[in-house]
């Protein structure tokens, strides 16, 4: 492959590298234009804010997934992990019983601690067990999911304290300066993620690890620590997403977070992160998550396709995104 790369002129190559970074943004613009043509209600501030707000959970989780995937890993357990974290957080709040800010803070702390621990477990098993991350997280996906079903005894875990619900509600439904809080949360998470991935040694090490593990090891990169930390970051992102998710419904069920892993990975791939590692694009991921929600929104606003087929369309999108990635790659 190096041969062919060598022979193409540098201008051409630079153009196609840019294509990879730009394509999610182009897709976003195309979708917005398409949406505006299909339904005049689409291009209203309230609809667009609503779409972005709804994409917040996936976007936050997908920022974590960007780290894992850029580092050459994969985490399928994020949906189940979110459900388990939400369930445990609500149970903790119910058991504490209070309706004050302190109780809420403790519950939030418990959620973050649990999700970070879940991520750490994934990371440690992958690094020290030397097992394919696909298998490890497939296993923990089943474990987390069935734990939440067991905790809920097959039913629903609901926040019981009414005061607490009222106290917590604004985190999903309120706005600051007209911007819904979930959007602010996800922009902050993305900004911190981008800062870590692009500007710190750790971020550089993640990319090196994903590019070529041996080179990283021979260059003195602490690969065990870096790899485990990517999964911990993924866990923390799941925790933050849960913090924004719980006030929306105030409950967790066995179907909470179902197929979120598909959406998170799709968002990452649409965003231009290489599934085999070595290239990570946090802002692309954010756009990818918004694109997924936009597609669902356009489907609801139009009458072309039943909205029950949203999952099918999102599944098709990840396949198309991979095809586009490869053709862009080949074009170099």
């Amino acid at each position, binding site marked *: 492959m190096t041969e062919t790369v060598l022979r193409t002129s540098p201008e051409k190559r630079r153009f196609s590298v840019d294509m990879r970074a730009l394509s999610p943004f182009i897709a976003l613009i195309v979708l917005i234009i398409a949406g505006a043509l299909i339904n005049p209600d689409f291009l209203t501030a309230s609809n667009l804010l609503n779409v972005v707000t709804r994409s917040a959970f996936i976007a936050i989780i997908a920022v974590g997934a960007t780290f894992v995937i850029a580092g050459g890993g994969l985490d399928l357990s994020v949906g189940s992990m979110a459900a388990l974290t939400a369930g445990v957080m609500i149970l903790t709040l119910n058991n504490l019983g209070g309706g004050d800010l302190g109780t809420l803070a403790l519950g939030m702390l418990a959620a973050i601690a649990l999700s970070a621990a879940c991520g750490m477990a994934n990371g440690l098993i992958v690094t020290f067990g030397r097992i394919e991350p696909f298998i490890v997280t497939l296993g923990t996906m089943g474990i987390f999911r069935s734990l939440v079903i067991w905790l809920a005894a097959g039913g629903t875990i609901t926040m019981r304290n009414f005061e607490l619900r009222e106290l917590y509600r604004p985190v999903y439904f309120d706005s600051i300066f007209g911007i819904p809080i979930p959007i602010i949360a996800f922009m902050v998470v993305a900004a911190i993620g981008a800062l870590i991935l692009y500007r710190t040694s750790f971020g*550089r090490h993640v990319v090196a690890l994903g590019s070529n593990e*041996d080179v990283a*090891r021979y*260059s003195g990169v602490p690969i065990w620590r870096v790899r485990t930390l990517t999964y911990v970051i993924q866990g923390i992102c799941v925790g933050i997403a849960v913090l924004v998710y719980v006030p929306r419904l105030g409950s967790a069920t066995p179907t909470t977070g179902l197929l979120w892993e598909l959406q998170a990975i799709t968002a990452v791939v649409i965003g231009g992160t290489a599934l085999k590692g070595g290239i990570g694009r946090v802002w692309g991921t954010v756009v990818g998550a918004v694109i997924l929600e936009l597609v669902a929104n356009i489907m609801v606003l139009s009458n072309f396709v039943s909205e029950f087929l949203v999952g099918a369309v999102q599944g098709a999108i990840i396949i198309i995104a991979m095809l586009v990635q490869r053709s862009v790659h080949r074009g170099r």
Partner: protein
Amino acid sequence: MDPVLRAENISKSFGPIEVLSGISLELRPGEVHAVIGENGAGKSTLMRILSGHLPPTKGSLHLNGRPITFSGPVDAEAHGIVLVHQEILLAPDLTVAQNLFLGREIRRFGFVDDKAMRERTRAILRELGTGIDPDREVGRLSIADRQLVQIARALLVPHKVVAFDEPTAVLTPIEAESLFEIIRKLRSQGVAVLYISHRLNEVKAVADRVTVLRDGRHIATRDIEGLEPLEMARLMVGRDMSKLYPEKPATASDQVVLTVRDMAVPDYVENASFTLRRGEILGFGGLIGAGRTELFEGIVGLRPSHGTVTLDDRNVHFRDAREAMAAGIVYLSEDRKGKGLLLQQNLRINLSLAALDKFGRGSFIDTGAEEKALDQAIKDFDIRTRSRDLLAGQLSGGNQQKLLLAKMMLLEPRIVIIDEPTRGVDIGTKEQIYRFIASLAAEGKAVVVISSEMQELIGLCHRVVVMRNGRVAGEVAQTDLSEDAIVYLATGVHEERAAEIAAGHA
């Protein structure tokens, strides 16, 4: 004698870049025709055009006097032109016989006829002078045997022209010698052999005529009679190459910086002991697979190992490369593409990767400082690159090696271990790398050079430790440095035979 295959004014362009221009070449039956040139001179492209893998942009091919165009390698094979690839292209889980007949199985009543294939495989291998078991899985063969299987596979079809692309790159001197026997046998059968290599001593030993390419142009075609390797090198590079090696720096001291006692790396090395002194260049010689790479990977913590490593009178044990680097020891892998550089990342990211801590500003990376370091490295190491934005994988082998050197030198090491410093590096760059290694020693650093090229060890090193079968076989002092001495220790073969091998090959 009339040529069997003739190339006339062959040119080849990839996009706007012309990699071959106006090459003419004649292959006569019963001759070994070597094509030599630096990396990037166009040898492999020419070979791929002759064997039908690539169509020429301009010019024509003539087979037995008639013009011909090949639609692809299969078509060329049908006309009796076969290519033995440089890399091993075999299915490791299939047996020797299955590999030989892969895609052209002998069938009987619609089923594969294993018995017939086994018989023919055995016959062909015997003809090549080897007793490889046709039922053995290829993955369990040595590299040399795999190459034999590959040659056998190529010779299975009726052939008039056989092309070898750098066939000895992975072979030991003895294995190479038996390959030359095969080539001579082919020649005596009237086959035209095209032989591509950059090992000039080999070319001298095996070729009848030599064609030299430089920068995609035909420089000369000469009979081997009276053409010495030094002259070949001059033709390849275009300038006098008699001073390839720099003066050995007079800084070798008695001050021991590193002592290794009874080092063992499971499955590879046993009981290895040696000392390394300040300001010296210590060579490590031996055949491929003698355990040299593994020994040093063990010392710097890249492999599990046990033994006593004493650094400045202090016993140390490194658990990973990071610890070794912190103690001032760097190891540059022989596998530049697989273990040295991130081929898909740019020069800046590669340069700073090992010494990233030096580019910190708080917890963030100071990109400006990285850029400055890259400027400095490009200047200091003469890294030739069209643009600073290139990926490491787009550099030539020599420039990759320079980048790897620059990367590791950012760690300001006291002990530098370089594994195969000039593998895949063109001769002009070799000279620069040798000078750089000598300057490291002159600065008072201790340098270890692991190399399979005996000339390199002799030309560069103060002393050479030779390994054989995972053990240290002995040490050759500067005054005794000779190919015979090294080959003897490396092979354990008595000296007359060693001299024979050395004269015939290396």
